[in-house]
């Protein structure tokens, strides 16, 4: 379990990477591990075109898909698959990553035929980051309404102004107090801050 944590399990990672590379052509699997000043866990980076083949290869080794997470790094969108082997005798898990350069129409092959969990996880990834999945059985949004515009977890996301004739975030319903508090805090104006807090009865 600790295997995928950095430094302790690099050997296991190297074995896995070489076996992926020999089993799947064009997988281009490589190791991402924290650098000098960095902390955290290592992961395996693979080519987005061959994600389905890589997952088919990993399915016998890891029987469960825990979660699909995505991060928008502005230059590319990264999709992370967290696989685990739910076997108390032989526990192991791994983080598989892939990077999509195309921000307009990022596409991946769906793995919902391999792991049942992927169905909803991919839907969430589509809903939040706008990554589309080919051959997905039920490609819809999941948390936002079906007719919502934009993908909230993109870094350049702007909330749509009108939704079904309703104004989103109308002036009279915005919370101004937090903003006032932040402004005063940044100015370092403690006297004002205290006066403000007293006026609010805090």
């Amino acid at each position, binding site marked *: 379990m600790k295997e995928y944590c950095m430094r302790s399990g690099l050997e296991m990672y190297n074995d896995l990477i070489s076996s992926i590379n020999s089993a799947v052509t064009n997988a281009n699997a490589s190791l991402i591990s*924290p650098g000098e000043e*960095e902390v955290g866990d290592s992961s395996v980076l693979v080519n987005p075109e061959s994600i389905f083949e890589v997952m088919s290869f990993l399915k016998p080794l890891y029987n469960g898909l*825990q979660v699909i*997470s995505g991060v928008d790094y502005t230059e590319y969108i990264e999709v992370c698959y967290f696989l685990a082997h739910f076997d*108390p005798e032989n526990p192991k898990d791994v983080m598989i990553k892939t990077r999509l350069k195309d921000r307009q129409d990022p596409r991946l092959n769906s793995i919902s035929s391999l792991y049942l969990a992927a169905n909803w996880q991919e839907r969430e990834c589509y809903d939040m980051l706008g990554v589309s999945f080919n051959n997905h059985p*039920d490609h819809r949004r999941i948390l936002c309404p079906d007719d919502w515009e934009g993908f*909230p977890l993109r870094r350049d996301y702007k909330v749509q102004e009108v939704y079904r004739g309703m104004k989103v975030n109308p002036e009279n319903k915005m919370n101004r107090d937090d903003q006032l508090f932040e402004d005063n805090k940044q100015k370092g104006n403690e006297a004002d801050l205290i006066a403000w807090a007293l006026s609010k009865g805090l």
Partner: protein
Amino acid sequence: MQTWDMDLEELKEEETSLPGSKLKTELLTVNMGPQHPATHGVLRVEIKTDSEVVAQAIPHIGYLHRCMEKHCEAIDYRGILPFVDRLDYLASMSQELTYSMAVEKMLGTEVPRRATVIRMIISEMQRIASHLMAFGTYALDLGAFSPFLYAFDEREKILTLFEDISGARLLYNYFWIGGVWNDLTDKNVEYIKEFLDNFEPELVKYDRLVSQNRIFQERTMGVGTLSLADAHSFGATGPVLRGSGSAWDLRKVDPYLFYNEVEFDVPVGEGQRGSEIGDCYNRYYVRMLEMVESVKIIRQSLKLLEPGPTLGKVSKVIKIPKGETYTRTECPRGELGIHLVSHGEKTPYRLKVKSPCFTHTSILPHIAPGQMIADFVASIGSIDIVLGEVDR
């Protein structure tokens, strides 16, 4: 295999034309929820029924979506703690534990021994409280009202303790990064001991009242069976996975806190009392047995309590170096995972919550077809979801 992809036209011909009759019947669409007592929150399930049998169930979620992950990108690490509370509001302490462990792992903070033991005691108390809620509401779903009152009576005692140590009854903000906010006093320890002594006979009472109840057994045995292979493929964890017959428990498999220093068993669904492995009864029964184990763990942890500080050294402004982590712990409802990406700033670059309830809700369309509607209610109750965590 994939029931949500079922061709309904085909189904209509096969299932609904009565033998020897020219009458044609149609599937009826019924919406269960979003305001329905049996859906445990704002879950809407679109059910296509053939008379009283569920032909297809499509869960619609998102009614409680509060953009938690997006908000976290703009809030500092300490400020996120109350947000994490509000995910699974019936087991807030366990959620805080996962998040603080993720941040501490990235910071390399050492948590004092006493704080770790307190965390263990409190999160096991939380597990009991959460399972009591699951037990009470499950009986309520199946039409028995009094177990709910018994369960709430005991849960109230735990909430009183939590109120005493944290000041709040539901959303605590008690586990801080680096330790816990308040120390447990001797009075609290006495209170916990007294609670445990009274609680064990209560468990026997619940067993006789509900687990051995013939009506309850008839309603849950052989209903909503989830095979082990499917449970793995769905990524199920917690009581749902253990009810399907796997002894997977993160506390045992990858011990965190001091779970390696205490002795406890992992309850597994083995088809007890003539049930079928992986059915509603097993999932329910695993929870009941887990409460017994939690009592054992708390008793042993109380002995580990030594005087000492309860908050480690954490700088006033928390800045995490560049990197990312995936930390998971065993929460009452399954494994909660935190995927934390940091760019060396005061706020996380990305915080993704792997919610066990989200995973478990996705099992519903798989086990629903062919069930009676009343049995479907039993299935929803047995996987024990909290919509705050499903929608985030």
